[in-house]
């Protein structure tokens, strides 16, 4: 297997783990962790495809990834704040119970 294939396979696994975590856990923080894993899988793909592309221009993939990490950090901050506020309202952070905003 070429390094690219290895990378892609690894990221697929990572993505699948993240997705499973996000879908299967009821703890909101763990769901957030799952989402982070999926994001990182995507980041890994960016790096891999940039590194093993036929003519990698300098820093393209890295900048993508840095942006994505920054966005993910912001997203996590918002997500954690939401978690705290969910906790304040229902004294736990079980995602299944946070259904008050249904239509």
């Amino acid at each position, binding site marked *: 297997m070429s390094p690219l294939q290895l990378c892609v396979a690894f990221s697929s696994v990572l993505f699948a783990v993240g997705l499973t975590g996000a879908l299967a856990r*009821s703890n909101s923080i763990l769901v957030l962790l799952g989402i982070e894993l999926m994001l990182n899988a995507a980041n890994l793909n960016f790096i891999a495809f940039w590194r093993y592309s036929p003519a990698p221009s300098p820093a393209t993939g890295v900048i993508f990834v840095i942006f994505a990490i920054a966005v993910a950090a912001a997203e996590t901050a918002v997500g954690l704040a939401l978690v705290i506020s969910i906790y304040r309202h229902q004294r736990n952070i079980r*995602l299944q119970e946070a*259904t008050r905003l249904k*239509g």
Partner: protein
Amino acid sequence: MEPRVAYLWLIPALPLLAAGVGCVAPRNGRRLAAGAAIAAMLGALVLSCFALHLALADPSAHLVYNFRWFDLGNGAVRLGLLLDPLNGLMCVMVSLVGLLIFIFSLGYMDADENFTRFFCFLSLFAAAMLCVVVANSLLLLFIGWELVGLASYLLIGFWFHRPAAAAAAKKAFITTRIGDLGFLLGLVWLYDTTGSLLLYDGGNGVLESHVLGDLATQVLAGGLAASTAIGLLIFCGAVGKSGQFPLHVWLPDAMEGPTPVSALIHAATMVAAGVFLMARIFPLAAADQGLAAAPVHVLTVVAGIGAVTALMGAAIAVAQHDLKRILAFSTVSQLGYMMLALGVGSWVAAIFHLLTHAFFKALLFLGAGSVIHAAHHEQDIRNLGGLRSPMRATYATFSVGMMALTGVPFVFSGFWSKEAILHAASEWNVSHLPLYAGLAGVVLTAFYMTRLLCEVFWGAPRSPAAAHAHESPAVMTVPLVVLAVGAVALGFLGTPAWPWLQSQLTGEAVPAHSLLEGGGLMALSIVLVATGLGAGWALYGRRLRATAGADDPLAAAAPRLFAFLGARMKLDELYAATVGRLNTFAAALAVILDRWVWGGAVGFLARFGEFTGSVNRGVDEGGLNAGFDSISERIRGAGRAYSRAQTGETHGYLRALAVAFVVLALLALLGGGQ
């Protein structure tokens, strides 16, 4: 131009000032108000005497002082003061009689709590009356004229808490107002035609020849001269004020006022103002005499009204029981005589009678006041009687007044003035009916005055009030004595032997005649007076009334006639049934028009607007709004259906995301080849 005439305004101004003092004086300021009023009248009397003196210096001159009141358009409205012997005599008469009555009132009104107000009103009246007298402008005269009406209203209603007095005051004001409206129209007509209301204005006044000539030749529809129409309209005012038929109905009711008021206003001065007015504008009233074709002359109407009033007043007086009402109808009758004299062309005789009448009628009223005061406000002659011995001074002076009024020959003034009137009437070439009416009135006058005297003073007292009567204080009897002297002495100013008054008033020397000139007429009237006195004595003096409830001898003889006269010929009822009804009907009509016709039209418009509005609403709500509403409802339904997808389950969303991702990935993989 006599500069002193400009000071004539002081004569009415002094009483006006006194009225102002009385108006602001506190209620217990009795001395202040009465003192000011009497001092002002005294001042006015002194000034009047000076004025008369000035006027008599040249009796034919009309001394005037005209001034501008306010600017109007390119011209101005002007007023003026006038002095001639007629004015001068009236001024002296009004202020002298006024002064005496003021003094009398000190005693008569002593117990009244509104003493200060009484003197305030009396002074106001005197000021207005003197204003009428000194005016050289019909406008100023009209102003004074209305103000005497106001004063009369206030004084008739002086005891306004009595409903009868309040009603009488209203009746007096309204009735005279009807006449005054005619006066006002005459005034504006005259003003419009001549451009001036000044009586004498250096040749341009309305009483001066060239203006009069214009007026008399200006012919209206029906052949009536403008001066006739104007004269008749102005005469309406005199009819109202002087209690002439058919507007005399207020005068007897006016006796609800205090007796000094009746004496001053409703006997001596104000009611005579109509006569004065007609004498004042006599040249205007007589201007149409030359027009043979005119359907009616002013003076003919005046004479006719005067004759009817003279006879009617005397006839009604025969059947009255109220002391003051008898005198009131006597006043109506005597004013009729004056108008009669004016109408037959002798305004001098009218003024002569006006002056003598002022004295003897004031005397009679004040005598009646003295009786009423003594008898605790008992006015019904059936309840009086026997006052001769306790009230000697009143009896004596009242008798003098009575004889002057009846025209007892030679000594009393009324005789001479009445003779002058009858003499003038006999020389009138239009008709002798006024003369006959006047002669009939002489009999009736003698008759009812004898009845009055017998019932009040002779016999025995017929009520406790009359039994306890005693003579009034000197403040009341002294004016009586002074007036009695006047009632006798004044006659000698105008006898045929020494016609001083006549020559002064006309400004021409009137030749003296023998005392017995026209002796036949004089003898006839003496016989008639004697007949009246004899009949009165026969019916009332020979067999005196025994009790208050006893039948009147005349009523026993002719009950229906007596009742008819006693009810004042039912004229009040007639007016209530005609004019009163018409008035009420007009008012009701106005309200109905207002509420149902005009209000109804507006209401209809409003209903129409409401109807249009409701139609509009129907279209809006049923048509347009319903369409919009149904569309909106569908949109809402759709929203409700879709919102069910929003479960709030985050895992559900994630799952949907994952499935969608897988589906998309599969689509990309499977369709990637193309």
